[in-house]
């Protein structure tokens, strides 16, 4: 996972969420439900293909891939670049 503003790259383990890795590395992201329901953590995608796990976005929005919910979703591509 890549942070667009700083260029930092972090690895998200199979047992971690994107949000957990961000928090561990001091990158602030507001979350609330942490289960993909509320939409609080919605983040723009610069490049890469999200693996959506939320129930907040519509099917169409999932297919467009412009936004992702880092609290629960993952990446299908090797690198997911986030608008952070």
């Amino acid at each position, binding site marked *: 996972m890549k942070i667009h503003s700083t260029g930092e790259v972090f690895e998200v383990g199979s047992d971690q969420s994107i949000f957990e890795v961000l928090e561990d590395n001091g990158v602030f992201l507001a979350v609330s439900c942490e*289960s*993909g*329901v*509320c*939409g609080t953590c919605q983040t723009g995608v610069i490049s890469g293909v999200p693996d959506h796990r*939320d*129930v*907040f976005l519509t099917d169409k929005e999932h297919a467009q891939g412009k936004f992702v919910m880092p609290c629960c979703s993952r990446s299908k591509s090797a690198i997911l670049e986030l608008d952070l």
Partner: protein
Amino acid sequence: MSQPTFPKNTWYVAAMSDEVAGSKPLGRKICGESIAFYRSHENEIAAVLDFCPHRGAALSLGYVEDGLLVCGYHGLKMGADGKTKEMPLQRVKGFPCMKSYAVEERYGFIWVWPGDQAQADKSLIPHLEWAVNPEWAYGGGLYHINCDYRLMVDNLMDLTHETYVHASSIGQKEIDESPVSTQVEGDKVITSRFMENIMAPPFWQAALRGNGLADDVLVDRWQICRFSPPSHVMIDVGVAHAGHGGFDAPADKKASSTVVDFITPETETSIWYFWGMARNFKPEDQALTDTIRDGQGKIFAEDLEVLERQQENLLAFPDYNLLKLDIDAGGVQSRRVIDRIIAKEQVKSSTIQTDAPLQTVSF
């Protein structure tokens, strides 16, 4: 965990129809389940867990708008199926689905099935002839009483107490001088008492006058108490001029009615008691209905303190074995029926999860 004291997979009277009106929901606990009743689309009755999926507020404190129950805390709009339909600025499709209850409006009452919703069957609601037959009239009310619902079943299945608790209205010495007989027919229990050649007590003298009959002559009096599960007690009561057949006397020789009792557990030690009287004389006389309701309400209020203090005593001495005398046979047999139904329900629920507070949708 101790054995439950009431069955939950059955229909209970939850409210009188006019208790749920307009945009105002009714919050009422039935068998330990906090339920919000409200009028949904086209005035249809709906019942959902009284718990907002957002922050747990009581939905019954809110209001109804466009057929949806609006939470009075942050405006979440709940549907009759337990699913959130809308909320300001929120996308709600991922919100958990809450428990909704099978509910039916019939005979002027709102009936609810508090247990396993998959087993709710509207054909199991009992038929009430007096509620659908124009030759009958009904008037009644509701009392909240802090007692185990089975204490009220005992009370109604043994009317000996009328002599003492209701001495000035329906009580008379001949009641506890006349033995009772109790029969069990399947899940139904019938306790009857017949008194012959007695003077009618004040309530029944008034009823005789109301029916155009002399009130100063000897009468035959009857009390036939009929228990049916889970906790309904219908009591045929009346007096007839002596020697005309008592209960079977022709209509112009008697004053009679059916005391209607629906006893709904709120908790293990409190009840919603729906009481009333159905009569098949002068059904069109609303003033008479009101007079009877007023009189019955006052008489039945006399039981409240007795039952609440009895409950307090039983909680203070939980291991005391109450005496079971011949006059108690109606209540004892009714409790045996209740115990049998609970045992059957427990066997079923050991394989089925029935008590999940929330029904969550899978994402």
